């Protein structure tokens, strides 16, 4: 019997939507660009991509996503701006957010674009090989609640964390060809083990 691949939605209001769609397709998942709250009905998991968190947050509020996702219980993955929008607390900001993860985050925490960087991260849940992580005007997690599992740090700062089936990264796994973090997210879905290995993985 062939299992139906999971359907992953990527919130398509602004930001690096195309890269996430492509990464999940390469992992063998089906994908949906989520423009309207109605598009949430058919998805097994949702990704909030990188972009400008203030712009995405305002559009989420205006187009009903904050309300529609208030009691969300399917797997959720936020990268960079997505991490900020998932956090309960954002230092010095009252911007609209989902607040579904017990995190306190600092925005633009490593500096402006001039200070943006890429670096090799140790991420034990992804195996021994380092993960090349791209940080762009990135936030970090200053405080994580008791139910949050810290998955990676950079220079002591929390940059990858998981709370149940919610995953948040301060960096951009969608900007590199390494699919391990996307696969890890899919492993949080019940039927992931059925996924075929994609042939083009490097």
């Amino acid at each position: 019997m062939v299992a139906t691949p999971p359907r992953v939605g990527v919130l398509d209001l602004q930001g690096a939507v195309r890269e996430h769609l492509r990464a999940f397709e390469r992992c063998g998942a089906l994908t949906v660009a989520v423009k309207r709250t109605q598009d949430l009905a058919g998805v097994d998991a949702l990704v909030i991509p990188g972009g400008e968190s203030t712009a995405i947050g305002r559009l989420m509020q205006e187009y009903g996503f904050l309300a529609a996702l208030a009691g969300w219980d399917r797997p959720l993955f936020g990268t960079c701006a997505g991490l900020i929008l998932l956090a309960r607390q954002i230092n010095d900001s009252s911007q609209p957010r989902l607040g579904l993860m017990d995190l306190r985050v600092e925005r633009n925490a490593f500096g402006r674009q001039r200070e943006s960087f890429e670096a090799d991260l140790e991420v034990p849940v992804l195996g021994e090989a380092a993960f090349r992580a791209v940080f762009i005007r990135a936030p970090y997690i200053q405080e994580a609640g008791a139910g949050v599992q810290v998955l990676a740090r950079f220079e002591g700062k929390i940059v990858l964390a998981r709370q149940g089936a919610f995953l948040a990264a301060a960096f951009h796994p969608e900007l590199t060809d390494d699919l391990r973090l996307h696969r890890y997210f899919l492993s949080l879905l019940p039927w992931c083990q059925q996924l075929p290995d994609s042939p083009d993985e490097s």
Partner: protein
Amino acid sequence: MAAEQGTLRVKRGLAEMLKGGVIMDVTTPEQAIIAERAGAVAVMALERVPADIRAAGGVARMADPAIIAAIMEAVTIPVMAKARIGHFVEAQILEALGVDYIDESEVLTPADEAHHIDKHAFTVPFVCGARDLGEALRRIAEGAAMVRTKGEPGTGNVVEAVRHLRAVNAGIRRVVAAPEEEMPTVAKELGAPLELVLLVRREGRLPVVNFSAGGIATPADAALMMQLGADGIFVGSGVFKSKDPEARGRAIVRAVTHYRDPAVLAEVSKDLGEAMPGLEISALRPEERMQERGW
């Protein structure tokens, strides 16, 4: 775990994050705050918007660093600023200020009539204007991490933006359709490096994000450029030269998000008050056409 700054991936990456968004020209911290509230993904800090540069005449230069610094202080979204074409010292100053992106822009008076800035020499990324595929690839070869197809700035007339985005698209289609052995000749005709032409052929698109700019004044203009294939929009004079900048800014942001949804476009286009006054392109003398600056 050494961190590497200013890599191509980091420079192009910020542009990737701006996709599907609107970058607005602002001249004061107050305007920057209005733009951020309207949902802009970044602001371009200027001393004057293009319509006023056009009206003032004379030599247009980099903005006063005090204005740029005040705007950077006022908002948390990225701040871009313009340097003159070829004026690498203005660019050095902008980098020292910590702006997030430098626009090597034809809106200002060019400082060098033969060479653009060597953008590889900088940690801060650059966006440059282009009118066709060859110009876009030359700028990318010089290190541009983002391209902006040019319109005619400060006119409120979208016709040139359409012409040039269509020209870039036509160039890409030609490169993709022609057999690979013709690529050296195609590269020669485009005046672009062969390896970049081959990259476009493989990917079917530009290797960097491409926004549309110049003459966009309404939500419908913005959605038109998005449907033609732009990754996002720069609005120069179109927001703050209109009657109600905040309402118009919000409407253009929403039009870019829902650019394929005519019902949303109809809704956001209502009751915006007057758009900026427009200029007929043929009424401009050749020396008044900013798009022809850059080579």
